[in-house]
């Protein structure tokens, strides 16, 4: 029996632990999105306390906030696993690492990687074009990490729980104290109409946990 057990260790393929290899990044993406149901098209900023996931075996998982128009988009969030988007760093990130991603109507994708951050806690992420100059600023706990230039000053905001591999990536996300800015005003308004805005994930769903709080989970755990 001992010999049989040892033989299994030698012969059976080992499931992945930690980095499963870049081959895990397939051709699918699963998003659970939410938005602020008023002032759509007029949002110039979004911020919130965002749960940074625990270190584990991940392929390509993202949690982010973003603002988009019908042709353009900017996004600020964290990734764990492979940041495999075109023009992104193509590196494996063992811990939650902040990044920005965006594109204009006619231009290429732009992607910037920032810093790894400790996991298992909430950190504040803020994305805004408060100066109304098309320079979108991403700030981690009020400290600017980077910027992207786009072809819009305001659009419609999103919160985003995203994964790319159903086997390796959990879909959990948690946002609290969500707030937004509208055109021309530096005031942050707490969400008053948080609502689901699309779900392509087969297992995880949007759950509203208060005016400015949400979870992306398999069951309502608010």
């Amino acid at each position: 029996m001992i010999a049989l057990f040892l033989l299994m260790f030698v012969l059976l393929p080992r499931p992945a632990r930690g980095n499963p290899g870049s081959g895990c990044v397939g051709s699918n993406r699963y998003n659970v999105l939410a938005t602020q149901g008023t002032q759509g098209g007029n949002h110039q900023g979004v911020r919130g306390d965002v749960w940074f996931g625990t270190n584990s075996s991940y392929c390509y998982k993202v949690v982010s906030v973003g603002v988009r128009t019908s042709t353009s988009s900017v996004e600020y969030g964290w990734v764990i696993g492979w940041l495999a988007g075109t023009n992104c760093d193509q590196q494996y990130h063992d811990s939650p690492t902040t990044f920005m991603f965006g594109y204009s109507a006619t231009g290429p994708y732009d992607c910037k990687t920032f810093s790894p951050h400790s996991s298992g806690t909430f950190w504040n992420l803020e994305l805004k074009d408060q100066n109304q100059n098309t320079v979108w600023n991403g700030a981690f706990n009020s400290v600017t990490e980077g910027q992207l230039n786009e072809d819009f000053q305001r659009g419609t905001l999103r919160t985003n729980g995203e994964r790319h591999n159903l086997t390796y990536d959990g879909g959990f996300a948690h946002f609290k104290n969500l707030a937004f800015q509208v055109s021309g005003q530096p005031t942050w308004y707490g969400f008053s109409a948080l609502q689901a805005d699309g779900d392509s994930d087969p297992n995880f769903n949007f759950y509203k946990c208060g005016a400015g709080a949400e979870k992306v989970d398999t069951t309502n755990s608010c």
Partner: protein
Amino acid sequence: MKKATVASIIGFLIAATGIGAYYVFAGGASPASSRLAEPNVDANNPAAELEGQNFCNGQAWTLDRARANVPYRVLEAHTDLANPSNMTHVWRCPDSQLAIALEYAPGVKVSLAPTTLDDPAAAWVALAAQDPGVVTVGTIRGVPGVFTDPAKDATGTAPGGVEFVEDGIQVAVIGNGRIPLDQLREVAESLR
């Protein structure tokens, strides 16, 4: 029960436990749900959006409906490449206020929306600075514009095209990554 049978059962249980312990020890993940999801275009990118079935995830409109419902002139293309005879769709686009898009068979899209830009010229300069060599600034229809040449985008992610603001409307003539910039510029010049 015979001793041999009992030994076989015990042996089987030990082996089964061993396989389970092995799998957990080695960090195996749970099997995924069997529900299938549609493959997404550009799915390798991190993007806070669902991949849509059409350009801009829009609602299908007619040209007449667009003309009746937006407070600006609906500009149509008039070149060999894109013209009223090969217009395939008119979309009412979400995420922007009063945005529409006209789609033409060869892969040309014309996006129209009230601009959010205070200073379009400065915005174009900033865009060009971010992607030098691919994005440039210039003049189109007598106003500042930004030009993206898909042939110069080594990453192949730029659809290419021309963007400008005219009479408060932000106009983007968008290609498909293969249409030469010169032809997209002709489309922009032909809009009326």
